[in-house]
């Protein structure tokens, strides 16, 4: 495996403006959520208990797995093992599909129990945070599919490094944001 130069920016510098900007926006919404919780901690606690925590936890594990698989896929692509890379990327896309499916079940359960985005502060933030995150998952899945296409065409690492690292970094951001959402919206609110 070729040794990486010291101080290599994954993807490219400009991409990190987008990633850090995106993370900051999410952080602002999460902190606004916590701020809003201060005015009604018990109400939030009751509402948080309406969420199906196991689904949230499983989704966290699914995304962590998908991130791990994406890292291995990146190693495979770097080593020109295109078949391995394709399998791993397909695995990551499968994880994303599972996440979306579980999310759909969760939304259906919440809405049929009468909790909509306009029924109270907690569910307001819950649907907006998870909805925005789900949009990111969809965009990320499209990017993974584009990477899959590159591997199918056996595009070499030298020409695609910037794009592939960018796609991988975007996916890790999607994972990282969900870790924060799970911790704050599912767990902390219920405590």
């Amino acid at each position: 495996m070729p040794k990486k130069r010291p101080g290599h920016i994954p993807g490219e510098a400009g991409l990190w403006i987008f990633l850090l900007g995106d993370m900051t926006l999410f952080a602002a919404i999460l902190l606004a959520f916590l701020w809003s919780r201060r005015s009604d901690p018990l109400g939030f606690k009751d509402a948080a208990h309406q969420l199906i925590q196991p689904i949230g936890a499983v989704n966290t594990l699914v995304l962590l797995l998908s991130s791990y698989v994406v890292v291995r896929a990146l190693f495979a692509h770097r080593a020109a093992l295109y078949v391995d890379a394709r399998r791993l990327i397909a695995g990551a896309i499968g994880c994303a599909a599972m996440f979306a499916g579980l999310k759909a079940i969760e939304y259906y359960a919440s809405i049929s129990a009468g909790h909509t985005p306009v029924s109270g502060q907690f569910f307001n933030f819950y649907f907006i945070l998870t909805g925005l995150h789900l949009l990111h998952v969809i965009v990320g899945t499209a990017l993974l599919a584009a990477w899959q296409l590159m591997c199918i065409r056996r595009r070499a690492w030298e020409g695609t490094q910037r794009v592939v690292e960018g796609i991988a970094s975007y996916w890790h951001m999607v994972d990282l944001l969900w870790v924060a959402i799970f911790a704050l919206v599912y767990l902390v609110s219920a405590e």
Partner: protein
Amino acid sequence: MTKRVLTLCAWGGPATLVIALIGWLIAGVLPIPLGSESSVEQVVSFYSHDTRVIAGLAISTIGVCFVFPLVAVIGVHMVKMEGRTPILTFLQLITGAATGVCLLLPLLLMTTIAFRPDRNPELTVMLNDIAWLLFITPIAPFMIQNVAIGVAILNDKRQTLPRWVAYVNFWVAFSFIPDPLAFFFHSGPFAWRGIFIFWLALTTYSIFLVVMGLTLRKAIKESSDLDACRLPPPRHDAPQPTNKLRAARVPRRRRPRPRRSPAAGAQEASRTHSR
């Protein structure tokens, strides 16, 4: 001359921001605009300071239209990026023009509300709702414009504009996503005056205007081929440049084929058949 026009248009970006903000400060829309949770009395009393409000809003209606020259100069540079099929350029021009209208109409409507401050308060509140929601919620033209610019920059092999500008455009587009939520909420951070709706969009759109204006100004200053709108006439005594490859490819004149008798022609034909 062209460079000067282009530079002026690029300054349209920051000019939009400055003039519109000044107008809003005069009208009282800034620092705290009317919100969906404002009471009927608050809305009516805002528009009752009619001279100041009309003056300020009229200035802002002119200010937001400086976005049109910016869209044009972005388009000129996107043509350079794309080449023969400037689809993203067209997309940016169309949606950029739409964004200008989406900014202009609501402000004109607000000015009209202040035209007759003594109308039925319910009508004032309704018109104010229309104006604000029309202003905040149409995200699609803005997002498409930003994404078109970003994609064109990333695909540009000549690096007309720096690549980080593409990512700023993507981030700005993303920041508009929550805005339709203003339809659903009458108060809180996702109402039209909410921090994640009005204030976020104002901040990021301002960043877009300033970043595009300044980076385009820099690109115009550094570009060399823009002022050549009239090429100098060719000098007749200068030697014509030779293109050795083309010279080599000129087919040599064919030698005239000798005329043959029909019998010899048939013999030739049978010989070629048997080959």
